[in-house]
């Protein structure tokens, strides 16, 4: 509790009335507020073993102390000083605190008026002023403590602002904007790119990826997206690079934020791909499928279903083969495309953190159920889905050919075909992504009986919500 009184002493020093004679008070004020002393006992112990750095306080000079030699007429000066003194005393008596409003009645520039005859327009006599500090003065108050000590003397506390309305202002810190980065651009993305440019040399086996002439890169944006190339030149001023494309050999210029550097290994492997992204995706799907099959295998084994077991075993072998030559057979296995679709959407669904599963797919017919979309103009209209970019951005086409963009899945509803024998796509559940023909509809129970097109022996009953009218050409998928 003793320290508590010490910290109070600090504010009293400020009110010191011994004018002019300003002694340096090294009020060893503990930095912590009183509240901290009570709560954080441990810290207090730590302090006792290791004394804290002194907090210097230089009391505010309320009135300059003139070093006037005993000469000349000082009657006028002393008269001014007396007036000032009186006014101040009066004010202090009245207000009791006399802190901020000290100079209310005295014009600011009169508070420390220079005595007549010194520092005039004609002659600058600095005799009134003290001498420069000596070396031991600097030892008394180190330079790096001086500024804060002065502010404390003026009544400033950590976290407070300057000025009458006491508004704290943070110092401006200049941040270098990445070159060529426009307004509204995503800064974090550019930073990421910069990071990847700098810090990829961690692994010794990997080549350091440096943005320089002759480096390999892949374009991320623009007409030549996903093309590989060699950097032929750098335009540092505009943050652009000139890239010679591997395929076709054209020179293109591109913003350096729209390329990704690759090492020579990757470059050799992929640079001849026409479309690497598709190939990658394909590979990923294969991987996924393999895993799924394995799971299924295990599942069936536990069910002791021997026939299926053999089948899937065979399947997985087949997939393994595929994996060895991922690019060559992308065309061969066209009949599997629907499955791919399903998986693809599953993967995009995984990437999406939102809970709503993605059921919407191209080439199905859906109904817009949102009254908000385009002010409800298309409310209750059936449209064909053309492309699905994300959960809340798909492109649809109305029957009269109008293309609608940026429709969210939540604004859409499945459509059950009116006529018998129509084709539907299963949009959720175990058979997701499969095409089927409707054999029977039970409108009272909302259940449809379907024949799967892939495996015509299989007939299932399914909820209306899980199927949707298929608008694509069935003959294209299954020639029969």
């Amino acid at each position: 509790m003793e320290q508590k009184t010490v910290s109070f002493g600090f504010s009293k020093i400020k009110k010191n009335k011994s004018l002019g004679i300003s002694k340096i008070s090294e009020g060893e004020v503990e930095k912590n507020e009183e509240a901290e002393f009570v709560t954080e006992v441990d810290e207090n112990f730590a302090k006792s073993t290791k004394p804290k750095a002194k907090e210097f306080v230089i009391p505010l000079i309320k009135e300059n102390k003139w070093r006037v030699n005993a000469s000349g007429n000082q009657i006028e000066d002393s008269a001014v000083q007396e007036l000032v003194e009186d006014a101040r005393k009066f004010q202090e008596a009245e207000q009791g605190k006399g802190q901020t409003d000290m100079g209310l009645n005295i014009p600011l520039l009169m508070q420390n008026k220079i005595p007549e005859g010194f520092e005039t327009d004609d002659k600058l006599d600095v005799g009134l002023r003290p001498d420069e500090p000596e070396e031991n003065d600097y030892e008394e108050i180190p330079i790096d403590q001086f500024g804060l000590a002065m502010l404390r003397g003026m009544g400033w506390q950590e976290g407070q602002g300057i000025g009458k309305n006491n508004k704290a202002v943070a110092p401006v810190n200049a941040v270098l904007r990445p070159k060529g980065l426009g307004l509204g651009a995503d800064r974090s993305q550019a930073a990421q790119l910069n990071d990847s440019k700098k810090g990829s040399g961690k692994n010794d086996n990997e080549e350091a990826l440096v943005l320089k002439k002759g480096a390999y890169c892949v374009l991320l944006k623009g007409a030549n997206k996903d093309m590989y190339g060699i950097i032929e030149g750098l335009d540092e001023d505009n943050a652009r690079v000139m890239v010679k494309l591997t395929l076709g050999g054209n020179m293109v210029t591109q913003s350096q934020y729209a390329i990704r550097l690759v090492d020579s290994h990757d470059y050799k492997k992929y640079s001849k791909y026409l479309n690497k992204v598709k190939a990658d995706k394909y590979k990923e799907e294969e991987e996924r499928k393999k895993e799924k099959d394995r799971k299924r295998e295990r599942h069936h084994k536990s069910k002791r279903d021997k026939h299926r077991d053999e089948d899937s075993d065979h399947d997985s072998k087949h997939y393994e083969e595929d994996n060895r030559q991922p690019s060559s057979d992308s065309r061969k296995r066209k009949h599997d495309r629907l499955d791919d679709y399903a998986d693809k959407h599953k993967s995009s669904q995984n990437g999406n953190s939102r809970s709503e599963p993605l059921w919407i797919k191209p080439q199905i017919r859906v109904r817009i159920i949102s009254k908000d979309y385009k002010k409800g103009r298309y409310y209750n209209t059936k449209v064909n889905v053309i492309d699905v970019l994300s959960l809340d951005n798909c492109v649809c086409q109305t029957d009269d050919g109008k293309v609608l963009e940026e429709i969210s899945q939540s604004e859409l509803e499945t459509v059950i075909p009116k006529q018998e024998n129509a084709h539907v796509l299963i949009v959720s559940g175990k058979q997701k992504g499969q095409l089927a023909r409707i054999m029977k509809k039970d409108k009272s129970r909302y259940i449809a009986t379907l024949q799967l097109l892939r495996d015509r022996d299989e007939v299932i009953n399914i909820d209306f919500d899980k199927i949707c009218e298929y608008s694509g050409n069935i003959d294209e998928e299954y020639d029969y």
Partner: protein
Amino acid sequence: MTGQEEIETSNEMLQERTRKLGSKIKELIILPIYANLPSDMQAKIFEPTPPGARKVILATNIAETSLTIDGISYVIDPGFCKQNSYNARTGMESLVVTPISKASANQRAGRAGRVSAGKCFRLYTAWAYKNELEDNTIPEIQRTNLGNVVLLLKSLGINDLIHFDFMDPPPHETLVLALEQLYALGALNNRGELTKLGRRMAEFPVDPMMSKMILASEQYQCAKEILSITAMLSVNNSIFYRPKDKVVHADTARQNFFRPGGDHMTLLNIYEQWEETDYSTQWCFENFIQHRSMKRARDVRDQLEGLLERVEIEVSSKPGDTIALRKAITAGFFYHTARLSKGGNYRTVKHQQTVMVHPNSSLFEDRPRWLIYHELVFTTKEFMRQVIEIENSWLLEVAPHYYKSKELEDGSGKKMPKNTGKTREDVTRNY
């Protein structure tokens, strides 16, 4: 646009494009305007446009408020400007391209159609305007060095800086640094009183470090030279004219002015040569020097000379004694020291911040062990602009309170990068 560089590039592109189009379009007059452009070329933008022709003016934010051109109908606003800011922790100034404020954007838009209907094209989206632009530009007092301001307040007898009614209060860090610098320079004593030196320094309308340098020249008897250097430093960024089509000539001209010791000596050399030609405009033109800036330097110098008389310092001269000159500079700028580190980079002595010599400096290739810089500017990197080489022992001589001899260990015995760093003989040699 943000500066000379961008303006010159777009100027070239526009010229090229119009040349290709030939007679397909009507005459297009393309005129740049920026602060560093010679005044006769600046004046061209005010010439009336001939009938049938169009005038394109490529401008920095000089055209935002400082000047008004009649008959502008369209404004294209890229949304950026170069902004000066001051880091109160390191004392480093930065000149960085930043998005403009909404207030600036509106001011720019207002430049179109002053006398008739006009349009403004903003090269950013409404979203960026709403979300990325600040409402107002940060007031300069919050991003500048306050050394001079604090000294002035002190000399006016205003001691309570905390309760001074600033219109826009500065961050307290800036005040702390300003006070500490004034203390270190000896303008304030350990009680916070303004000293004799401080009062004399307050007479000069320059940065406290500069005024200390001027007052220190009394001791080294080189006030005449120091005055010229100060005047040149106060206009230093606009002395050389470097047109894009004559870069090589301009650079050679500049390099011909180089003098050993550092950039301050070079500036002094330019001023003295110009003085010898009786302040000739022709001489400036031949040497790719901006006459306008030199004239301003001369005005500043005249003013400083008057003030020197007021603080009762004799205008003495020591021609050729660069050591005295450099010691006087050191006395003012001992805060701004950098040393060559073992890695071959420069680091500031107090903050251990990596900095580089500006490529335009005469010491860019010399790499002396100890340097004093006039200012630290963050553009693409942290550059020291206007540097001189010094000897570490001078620091102990002029600022024993600021430097401990331990900090100034030369490392002469230690390994230095090959062919870098200079020996004591090199530095103290009188050129």
